[in-house]
């Protein structure tokens, strides 16, 4: 399940959008004990000015991204705008049965997008 983008395209400024990953969707619900799924989210949106300059609580601004946005606003060219990508991620843990009927707990880093940024 994904949050539809505004106007059907990558509208609005760069920000985190909701994406729920359900283990049932890929048929793993029989052997994944918990969780049933998780909010992975994704990044989408324009990285033009001023979106490239997030507020004080946003991800750190990359000077290069600001430069590109400035160049693009002055004279759009092949370089294009910076990209809207994950800037801060967090882990998840998955509890499941493996092929030998062991109960396994695995921890995975960088599975959930908490914050997006222009890069």
């Amino acid at each position, binding site marked *: 399940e994904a949050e539809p983008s505004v106007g059907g395209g990558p509208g609005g400024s760069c920000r985190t959008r909701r994406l729920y990953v359900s283990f049932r969707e*890929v*048929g*793993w619900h*029989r*052997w994944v*004990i*918990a*969780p049933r799924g*998780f*909010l992975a989210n994704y990044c989408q949106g324009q990285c033009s000015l001023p979106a490239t300059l997030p507020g004080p609580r946003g991800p*750190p601004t990359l000077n290069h991204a600001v430069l590109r946005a400035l160049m693009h606003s002055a004279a759009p060219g092949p370089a294009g705008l910076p990209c809207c990508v994950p800037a801060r991620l*967090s*882990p*998840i*843990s*998955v*509890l*499941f*049965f*493996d*092929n*030998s*009927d*062991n*109960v*396994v*707990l*695995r*921890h*995975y*880093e*960088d599975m*959930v997008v908490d914050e997006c940024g222009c890069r």
Partner: protein
Amino acid sequence: ARAPGAPGPAAALLQALGLRDAPQGAPKPRPVPPMMWRLFRRRDPQEARVRQRQTPPGAPLRPCYVEELGVAGNIVRHVLDRGAHTWTPEPSATGQCPQWTAIFDLSAVEPAELMSRVRLELRFVAEERAPGTAGGWELSVARATQGVGVGPVLLRQAVVSLRMPVRVELLGTAYAHNTSVPRSLQLVLALSPLATGTCACLAEASLLLVTLDPRLCHPLARPRR
């Protein structure tokens, strides 16, 4: 030459999660050990968010570290014994209690994974009310050799009561730290009453194995200047 067909989405996700393949068919239903639930709830960010609403935030959890067990690790496995064959020693040693062979299948563990905790958990059943068992027991753990032979005793441990599971740390005795995991672990267990008394029965043997897969650990990011 064409590269082999790209894996489907599910196979690609499995690969990204470091899993060789999805278990085939429905697993044999078995209860999830309370310890595994506790470890999952402790680490699961969604559970953590619920917890933060209920209790003041504690120190952030360190990546690649199992706080509850106090060791480095990012994979915890609860492995059930596949052996548990009861056999009695030679007739000359009649009067001795039975011994058990416990076999743990660790073939699912990847060679890159390093052991950081190997805990044997044994549940015994004995009539503690029988006379003479007040002195407790002595558990001995040895390696099983080919056939039903017994290798050298790896450790002995006093057992005061059988009401609680008996836990035995094997890392440092049966296995050295940071060594790769063997494909199978075969142990011979014996529980002898220290005073004359009845023998106990082994009801269940399981292994709690914590490993660290360094490939899934990101070097800690340097603080930004």
